[in-house]
């Protein structure tokens, strides 16, 4: 598994892919942060007022990046789906399975590397958002004192972990789609179609479903349980179970299926 983990970093760290992915998440972070600070005095997407006082709280530092947590999730899903399904479509998985025939260990190593990569890109987005928040705060009358306090640092750490967990949940959906569909385009399209319009429509039509739909739960986790009355702990537990089941299903399919690509 360690060999598979190390080997997976070779394609992940190729400059074009790495810079492209980082560019995408940094752009998302910039967008979310700028829009959040420019929303002061207005209402957000859900109709709640955005105030300088709210942003001045210890958890205000991550409001910008949390606003685009769904986009970070989409990037995580796409990266994982493209990477795993790309191995199928390029035929490179054949070589890898001959080199490392223990399938469960191979996939586990790859998933671990991809999870670390997702954490890396979320960290990059968070760092950019935090830096920009400090720059924009004075222009919108937001105090940064609480951000640098002990409570602020705890909120920063907790918020970062939540963003990572939420993005990893999206990544699990991408992994399952990639293993089942075996083509990057199909895997990304189907996974995103499910994650965005399908679940959103269901959740809008039947609001209690938000407590059970996987992507809605990932969103709850990413934002620290701010968007829904459901307790964060419940969302976390259900989200982890969903992600675990998806990874387990992917492993089972990967182990048993004939490699005809």
């Amino acid at each position: 598994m360690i060999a598979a983990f190390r080997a997976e970093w070779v394609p992940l760290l190729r400059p074009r892919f790495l810079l492209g992915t980082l560019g995408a998440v940094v752009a998302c972070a910039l967008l979310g942060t700028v829009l959040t600070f420019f929303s002061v005095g207005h209402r957000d997407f859900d109709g709640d007022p955005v105030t300088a006082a709210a942003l001045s709280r210890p958890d205000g530092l991550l409001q910008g990046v949390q606003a685009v947590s769904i986009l970070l999730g989409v990037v995580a899903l796409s990266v994982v789906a493209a990477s795993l399904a790309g191995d199928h479509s390029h035929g490179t998985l054949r070589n890898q399975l001959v080199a490392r025939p223990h399938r469960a260990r191979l996939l586990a190593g790859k998933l671990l590397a991809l999870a670390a990569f997702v954490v890396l890109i979320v960290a990059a987005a968070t760092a950019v958002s935090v830096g920009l928040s400090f720059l924009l705060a004075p222009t919108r009358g937001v105090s940064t004192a609480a951000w640098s306090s002990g409570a602020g640092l705890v909120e920063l750490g907790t918020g970062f972990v939540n963003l990572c967990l939420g993005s990893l949940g999206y990544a699990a959906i991408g992994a399952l789609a990639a293993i089942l569909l075996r083509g990057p385009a199909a895997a990304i399209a189907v996974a995103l179609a499910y994650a965005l319009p399908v679940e959103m429509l269901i959740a809008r039509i039947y609001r209690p479903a938000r407590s059970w739909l996987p992507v809605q739960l990932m969103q709850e986790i990413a934002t620290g349980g701010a968007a829904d009355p459901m307790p964060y702990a419940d969302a976390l537990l259900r989200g982890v179970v969903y992600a675990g089941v998806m990874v387990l299903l992917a492993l089972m399919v990967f182990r048993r299926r004939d490699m005809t690509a």
Partner: protein
Amino acid sequence: MTSGSATDPAHANHDPAHGTAASPTVMDGTAGLARADTAIWTRGLTKRYGARRAVDHLDLQVPRGALSGFVGPNGAGKSTTLRMLLGLIRPSAGHGHVLGEPITEPDRYLHRVGAMIEGPTFHPGLSGRRNLDQLAILRGIGGWQRALRQRRVEEVLGQVGLGERADDRFSTYSLGMKQRLGIAAALLPDPCLLILDEPTNGLDPAGIREIRALLGQLAGGGMTVFVSSHLLTEVEQICDHLVMINGGRMLFQGHVTDLLAAEDPRIVMIPEHDADARRLAGLLGDEGLRVEIDLRNGPPDASATRGRRPVVTAHAPEGLAAHLNRLAMRAGITLRSLRTHRPNLEETFLRVTGEIDGDLVRTAQAGQEPDGSVPPPVGAGLDPAHSRGGAT
């Protein structure tokens, strides 16, 4: 080198229409011994996709240290067989061993196997070197020591002559370079068994010669090489052992020379005067030889060019060539050309797999000339490039 099979080459000449295989008769009692002596050994290996059998009760036996060719038409089941040997797909029935380990446990033998199947497949965005680096890490080559790993990558790149372009992206490689990289990847683990699927695809003649030399060198060093190819001339030149399948079933396995020795030798004659063709055929027939006249090669009408002439083919060994020449001379028939011909692997392959109407029986049934003569197999004895015997 032992063939590892009790194949009677004569049995290779079976009727492909009935799908009866001339597979080697290996006694059950010797199976254990065969496994020890062979790099690849299967019994009843079968892969079904629904009702279709891609591989049908295949009994493979590839001797250790052999340079073995694996041939068959498109869709014969070669790649499916190779995938089963590499643990990529599960057999529907049967069993097998690779390097003495069961194919159901590929992690017990694949560290000693190098393979390239269905073409070279690498990450297009990575350089050749980085692609090999990834596979080397996966195989645990050099452990955590990057220098050892890089040295091995460098070695295999040098072996296939790809050192200068190793840092270019795979997507910029020509087909020949991709093939070389695929072979380099297969060589990475310094394998005991090398399985290559069409390794010379896309290579120029010089490249083919280099790969041929490389494979010979590897086999000479004790490595078992199992290579599937459509280039039968290549297989004939480099392989000492051959496995031929069609429709998922075994047609022949054993020494290439055994297969070719069992083929029907011919003496091909072209009389100076077209009118002598029938007389010559009669003379040869009186000698007890099976004779065919290809009158189709004569000019279709009087106004046509006279570049093509009737060909008389006698089914006889090379040793009779001088005798037949004397016989014709005594009868006042001057021969414009006389040459011996023994079918090469390509002709044998096409006849056995039924890909062309090279089967004499089938030709006789389907294509008799109006005068009752039987046209010889397509190309047989007509193309000097296919002639293995000397001309007199």
